[in-house]
């Protein structure tokens, strides 16, 4: 895994020096991250890289995962969908299971960080231990909170307001809360297997492995097989475009241990794809980062046609590879794409199909969008910026309410 100094050629020496400066103000502070899965999904991906880098900076960071059974994750998946605005009904048993699983984790886990950093709703109930052990508590929401189901929101709000501070990924997710809400966008790691530069032979090998024709345009969406990523909508977009332009569609994604719905969605997409030889549906195992990287790099255009989105890290990944991206204007995506400058934002299947035709027929325009997108990601969405924001947040916990701090 890359150490902090390997980022210097990408972000500059001055940025690394300043990270060390902020970290020097946090010597001897311990930070315990807790989430619900060690593998799969954006949260685990960020923590795998973030925790060692915080350690490189001299901060005692560590990461634990809560335990929960299959039923618990079915409830939290429903909760996830409800927070994204879907109408979902919970039984009393389901809510009890959520509470009991959190209570079990409160009892069993060693909650020893000076700063307790809790990610997403699944472990939110750990805050009940606060009265007993004290410490500073941060709750980070990684999902789209712009139109949450009121029942689920009110249930979670009682927990959220016990924290010192909450973090959201986009301005539209802000809620009326009695605690401060901080805006911190997630990030990608330019040196991870998913984002590092790849030799052309590796890219070709991956295409050959999946029998994708490298000589014809490739349109790709990388994401979990999830209704909210609208894979069926992507197939419709592809069919509208292929009437006029020869191209292939790749829908590729892994599963996450906290997402029991993936197999069902994949089956539905397979049905509508109906063995079309130009549609490649790839359910990739967790160790497929190089394959994902290669597929993005081989693409003519990358899509992210999500109906709802927390942030949409796959957009930043594609932009980092200087690819032209067409994405829905939802969640954190508009933070990553300035429409017609660093990518194209769309709202509908028709609009996405139109944009795709435009980019496939005007590769020079696509190249310029890609160049601008890469620079925007370099400045704002790499892990070094994320590290900086977290360290500022840790520092802020001791200086609440002050607009300007001289440290």
């Amino acid at each position, binding site marked *: 895994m890359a150490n902090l100094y390997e980022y210097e050629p990408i972000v500059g020496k*001055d940025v690394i020096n*300043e990270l060390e400066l902020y970290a020097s103000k946090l010597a001897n502070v311990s930070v315990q991250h807790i989430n619900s899965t060690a593998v799969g999904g954006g949260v685990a991906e960020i923590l795998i890289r973030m925790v060692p880098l915080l350690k490189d900076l001299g901060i005692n960071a560590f990461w634990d995962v809560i335990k929960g059974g299959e039923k618990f994750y079915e409830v939290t998946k429903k909760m996830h969908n409800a927070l994204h605005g879907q109408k979902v009904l919970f039984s009393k048993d389901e809510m009890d299971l959520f509470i009991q699983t959190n209570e079990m984790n409160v009892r069993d886990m060693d909650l020893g960080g000076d700063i307790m950093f809790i990610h997403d709703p699944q472990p939110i109930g750990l805050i009940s231990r606060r009265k007993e052990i004290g410490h500073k508590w941060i709750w980070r929401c990684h999902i789209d909170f712009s139109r949450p189901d009121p029942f689920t929101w009110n249930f979670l709000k009682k927990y959220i307001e016990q924290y010192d501070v909450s973090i*959201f990924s986009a301005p*539209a997710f*802000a809620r009326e809360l009695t605690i401060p809400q901080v805006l911190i966008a997630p990030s990608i790691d330019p040196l991870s297997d998913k984002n590092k530069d790849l030799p052309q032979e590796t890219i070709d090998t991956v295409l050959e492995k999946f029998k994708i024709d490298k000589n014809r345009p490739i349109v790709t969406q990388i994401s979990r097989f999830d209704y909210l990523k609208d894979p069926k909508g992507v197939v419709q977009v592809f069919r509208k475009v292929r009437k006029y332009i020869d191209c292939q569609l790749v829908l590729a994604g892994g599963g996450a241990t906290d997402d029991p719905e993936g197999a069902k969605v994949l089956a539905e997409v397979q049905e509508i794809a109906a063995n079309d030889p130009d549609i490649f549906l790839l359910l990739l195992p967790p160790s497929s980062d190089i394959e994902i990287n290669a597929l993005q790099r081989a693409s003519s255009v990358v899509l992210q046609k999500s109906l709802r989105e927390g942030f949409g890290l796959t957009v930043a990944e594609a932009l980092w590879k200087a690819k032209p991206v067409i994405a829905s204007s939802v969640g954190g995506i508009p933070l990553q794409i300035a429409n017609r400058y660093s990518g194209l934002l769309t709202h509908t299947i028709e609009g996405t199909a139109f944009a795709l035709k435009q980019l496939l027929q005007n590769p020079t325009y696509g190249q310029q969008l890609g160049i601008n997108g890469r620079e925007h990601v370099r400045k704002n969405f790499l892990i070094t910026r994320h590290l*900086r924001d977290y360290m500022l947040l840790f520092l802020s916990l001791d200086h609440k309410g002050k607009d300007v701090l001289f440290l």
Partner: protein
Amino acid sequence: MNRIAKEPFQFFTRQNLTYLLGKKAKNLNALLTGIKEIPLASIYQHTHHFLEQHEYLSPEPPNDFAYWITNVLQNNALGEEIAGIDLRQFSSLKDIQVRLVEIVENSIQHDPESANRNVPAGEEFHFMGAQTFVFPTQYIANDLMEFKQCLGSVSNYSIYYHMFEAPLFQEKSRFCYWIQNSLEDEKLALAFKNLDPYTQTLDNLKHNLVRLVRVRLEGK
């Protein structure tokens, strides 16, 4: 020609943590109410963060208010007027707030119907605030030569602090203040004062500052 300073110049750097206020505006009236009510740190956030986040863009995009008014409300004339506010002429955030209110109120007076025209759901203006962290860096200049070397080495965040924030938070940390009072070089101080930091990228700004000092060192 090198000059020795009476007092050394300490380079600072800065960062912002952005706060979401949980308030949003769906029309011009609500935006005006918000501008009047939000804390001054929020006025700062909305008039300055664009400069940082999109620093590579040339020409620079305007501030958040102007961007939303132009691109979402589609009130081009008002957007242009807000974008055109010369932020350098204000020595306090309160003055910037007053000027923003004045311009928006004037626009509403001339076109009252526009004030309550709502934007589509999801495209509202979200009010934000900021907490600013200022850190001393390892870079300290005792003379003009060292000053030039430091300018070339510090981050863009440091340049940003001394050019944009020091005038609002810490007058003595302005480059031109030190050049005038400690180096006692009126000519160079004036050249620094006359640079408009709001109309160039930070990379260009840094390059221009170094160039001004180099020319001065060459005795021109």
